[in-house]
């Protein structure tokens, strides 16, 4: 072996799975390198001799045994657990949204306080809270009943 390219990608070359540029460049090399030409020739001959050999095939059905051996419900269970997780995530999102709403209302109330006289704050606060607390309760109750209706199984879990 003297050619530095004797161990190049000749197996890929023979299977014609190189880029056009690579293939052309290697073909050009073959034109003036008898050693690499011999290698390519030997690979082709070997393929011709031993490719796709005849082998005895089994007389029985492999598929039946495989299908009997696998747990066909294996991924159904996964599907249920994934959906449960998603619904649980959805319920958490519901709680988060309600908490965010409460926080925003509280934040708005504090911003009022800077422009209202101190003695008016208590009165205004109590009147606003009366107005706000009723719809908030209703919203919370509605959200709870909706979520419980939506995911009765996740509560049992």
């Amino acid at each position, binding site marked *: 072996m003297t050619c530095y390219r004797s161990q190049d990608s000749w*197996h890929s070359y023979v*299977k014609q799975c190189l880029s056009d540029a690579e293939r052309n460049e290697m073909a050009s090399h073959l034109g003036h390198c008898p050693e690499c030409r011999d290698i390519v020739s030997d690979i082709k001959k070997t393929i011709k001799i031993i*490719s796709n050999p005849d*082998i005895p095939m089994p007389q029985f059905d492999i598929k039946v045994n495989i299908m009997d051996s696998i747990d066909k419900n294996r991924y*159904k269970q996964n599907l249920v657990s994934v959906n449960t997780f998603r619904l649980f995530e959805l319920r958490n999102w519901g709680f988060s949204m309600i908490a965010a709403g409460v926080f925003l209302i509280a934040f708005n109330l504090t911003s009022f306080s800077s422009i209202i006289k101190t003695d008016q704050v208590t009165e205004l606060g109590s009147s606003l809270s009366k107005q706000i607390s009723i719809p908030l309760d209703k919203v919370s109750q509605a959200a709870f009943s909706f979520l419980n209706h939506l995911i009765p199984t996740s509560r049992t879990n």
Partner: protein
Amino acid sequence: MHYHAQTILKEDEKIIQAVLIGNGEGYGDIVDRYQTKLYRVSYYYTQNIEDARDLVQDIFIKAYNNLSSFKQGSAFSTWLYRIAVNHCLDWCRKKRPQYAEVSCLDIFSTEEEGPEDLYLRQEVASEIQAAVVNLPAIYSTVLILYYFEDFSPQEIAEITNTSKRTVETRLFRGRKMLRDKLHSKSSGGEGHDLLSKPGQLAQLR
């Protein structure tokens, strides 16, 4: 060819997705598509029908149980062959009997033709397969996939998780080792380099 490969890829992906959302029966389609190919690979390693059948079953069951770890978008066949090759190599390490050394390769030197051609061809194929599988595992695997099953070096690299350059080197060395092995075992000795003198063998095919 490329279009055909893409179609197979998409069909495989469709079946896998169906299995992963609970259609376990759909796995039968995967078995239909790959059982012959995997049986062939298994047979090269085991050299007998019963062990090859058992290996194929184990490979398909293992693949099914690990199907959730298959990355969607990659080639399912490559993933499956990787499991198959690793499983076969494990089997070889644990159970493969020590085959008798290749002993009757002198049939390569005969130039006779006759009704026994089929028998001789099977014998030749069997001897070469035995010689290949008795090489060190890193060489036998690339030779099996390249010469017996028509994979490209790039595909073999993906299956065996190595670089294409490494596969090329192993093919080069593996082929040389196989040639030396067959050469040393052929009865004629000098002048019976079987893999570089296919004319004699070709007459048997």
